[in-house]
């Protein structure tokens, strides 16, 4: 059982929570994630990035978007409530060293896993260019925190409601075209965004690291549900990743695999809203 110590709503459907998890807080490094389960009997296990950790308090911070049944129920939980299972930290930590200039691109909720990496890269002495993108202003998260860490900060939205009206690939290409070109790109966000970021940097030959978020059950290499094709070889995101060379990842295959249970997920999600409606009606009528 892991107690919820703090809860903040960051945008329309994005939430930040601090969970009591002393062991994970102590061991966790940037790039790692947890698997969380709300009900040990019938609940599903979902991977979530660790956005931050406080080893002294013994807490970790998670940031998640309420997109499906489990994340919706989680979003409704309050300070003092508990989560039944949190397992971690899982995955290989980010390889952090002084590369020189590092471009960190975060799309939507992807800014959450990017944040600790930016912190780490900055601490290692890199010059940091941050590019943050979202569909619209209301979906931008951690803007201030990212701005504070960046040597250069670019923000863009699809609809132009905040910053440049552009996709993140546009400024990314510009930055890659500078002389000297950046030494490294880290891109985290929706699969389609990471795919196009990798395509954008490929002609410039800038190493581009992406962090994949696939379907998982155990998170320890046992089930193989998370497998992706990287450089023609099968890799497990949970133990070999979650970070890979974006120029080697078969994103199309990964996106198809992510959709494997879409019908079921949509149904569960709808059902969850219906139940919530029923519950709220029940609570009104005595």
């Amino acid at each position, binding site marked *: 059982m892991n107690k919820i110590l703090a809860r903040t709503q960051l945008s329309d459907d994005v939430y930040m929570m601090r969970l009591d998890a002393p062991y994970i807080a102590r*061991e966790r490094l940037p790039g790692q994630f947890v698997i969380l389960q709300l009900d040990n009997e019938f609940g599903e296990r979902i991977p979530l990035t660790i956005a931050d950790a406080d080893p002294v308090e013994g807490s970790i911070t998670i940031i998640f978007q309420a997109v499906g049944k489990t994340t919706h129920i989680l979003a409704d939980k309050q300070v003092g409530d508990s989560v039944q299972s949190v397992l971690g930290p899982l995955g290989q930590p980010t390889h952090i060293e002084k590369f020189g200039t590092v471009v960190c691109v975060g799309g939507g909720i992807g800014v959450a896993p990017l944040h600790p990496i930016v912190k780490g890269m900055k601490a290692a002495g890199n010059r940091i260019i941050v590019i943050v993108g979202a569909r619209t202003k209301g979906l931008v998260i951690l803007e201030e925190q990212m701005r504070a860490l960046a040597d250069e900060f670019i923000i863009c939205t699809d609809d132009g409601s905040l910053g440049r009206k552009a996709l993140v690939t546009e400024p990314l290409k510009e930055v890659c075209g500078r002389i000297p070109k950046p030494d490294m790109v880290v891109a985290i966000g929706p699969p389609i965004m990471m795919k196009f970021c990798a395509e954008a940097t490929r002609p410039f030959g800038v190493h581009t690291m992406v962090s994949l978020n696939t379907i998982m059950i155990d998170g320890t290499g*046992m*089930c*193989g549900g998370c497998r992706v*094709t990287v450089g023609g070889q099968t890799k497990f995101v949970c133990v070999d990743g979650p970070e890979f060379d974006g120029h080697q990842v078969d994103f199309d*295959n990964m996106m198809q695999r992510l959709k494997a249970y879409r019908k079921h997920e949509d149904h569960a999600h709808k059902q969850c809203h219906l139940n919530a409606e029923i519950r709220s009606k029940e609570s009104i009528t005595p």
Partner: protein
Amino acid sequence: MSHSSPETLALEARQELEGLLKRTTPLTPKERIAITAQEMPTQDPAVRRRNVQEVALGYTPEQARLESMRCLQCRNAPCVQGCPVRIDIPGFLKAAADGDFQGACSIIKKNSLLPAVCGRVCPQETQCQEHCTVGKALKSVDKAVSIGRVERFVADLERESGSAVAPTIKPATGKKVAVIGTGPASITVAADVRREGHQVVMFEAFHKPGGVLVYGIPEFRLPKAIVQKEIDALTGMGVELKTNFVIGRTRKLKALIEEDGFDAVFIGTGAGLPKFMNIEGENLVGVFSANEYLTRANLMKAYDFERADTPISRPGRVAVLGGGNVAMDAARTAVRLGAEEVHIIYRRTEVEMPARIEELAHAKEEGVIFHLLENAKRLIGDKDGCVTALECLRYELGEPDASGRRRPVEVKGSEFIREIDAVIVAIGNDSNPLIPRTTDGLQTTKWGNIIVDETGKTSIDRVYAGGDIVLGAATVILAMGEGRRAAASINERLK
């Protein structure tokens, strides 16, 4: 195979036993051999195809006694030689034949900690029963005394009647042992080490303990309540259990010894790394490792469509690649989830199949279709990346290989297409690399199995290992035997 109703089997056994008990002279070996071999009562195949309840219902007391009476009490006990943990088989069968079921169970428990589990999942036909004189006399291992079924009966009876005596625990020694994993090897170590008065903490990565007994073996073959009872027995003995705790990540193995004050560590993390065929199309949507498929169905209860959040694919036509128990479990799970056709594809013949005879028979009764001497060459998908067909090759058997089984040789140019909607790959597991990768100095073989000496000790002082992480994917009973050995070494070391 025709299905006999449990009622018929029970009635026939009662009548036969009554007849035998009226006798005043002891049975001759010939008469013992003439006793009807007792069939295991099972759920009707047509019914069980649609439920997840246990298939084999277990003997009646009369059946257990009759089956035990078939034992010739051979002086050289060849059956014991076939048992990896050397259970006194003639001894417990004698007690069971006399109706002393509690006594029989106590005899088994001297050597085996998990009789209710092993009675269900041991491959008896290649262990104790393979060597049975009765089977030899009747020229079929199928006619051997059903040692495993009697074992199961006495263990179930003990559990259900609550007559199990809690083991005595020696006074606290102040020593502390960490057990990593909660499968059969670890359960054995935890019990044996705790009995000596040492404090024991078990670490489990999943949210529930039991390891492969819980995530891998389906409910219809091993009810989870039985595994839970074994775990309850451990916690009842004072063993502490930490779930959602993955050693190597949540805490490094060496930190357990260097910082947390553990005097010894046992690694029983099993063979949890699914093998794939490494053929084209294996990452298409609709292709699963058996581990994934079974974990969804078992541990995550995806068969309970109404209540479980974890989804599971429910395709019409399923192909399972492989011929072991896991392949049978996956195929029979697919049947229960409503598949219209389930195909097992195996590149050798039935004789070479590693699955237990009983599982094979049950799978056939449930309508699983077997394609022998056939293997997948590549997987074919549609424009959305979903698997739609297998390209298969026919095989024939050649010379025996290192394992003594005849080597399957592909028939050149025999490619053909088999249309399917999902593929489950059940060709085995390698050792999970998580602990070796995160523990400096822990030596492994080139296959990733942890290397241990004859006492079960690894290359690191105070660290022991056993079960599938050492053996490669093997059996519950072997894992238990390994656990016994390591526990004895740990107890010796902590003296």
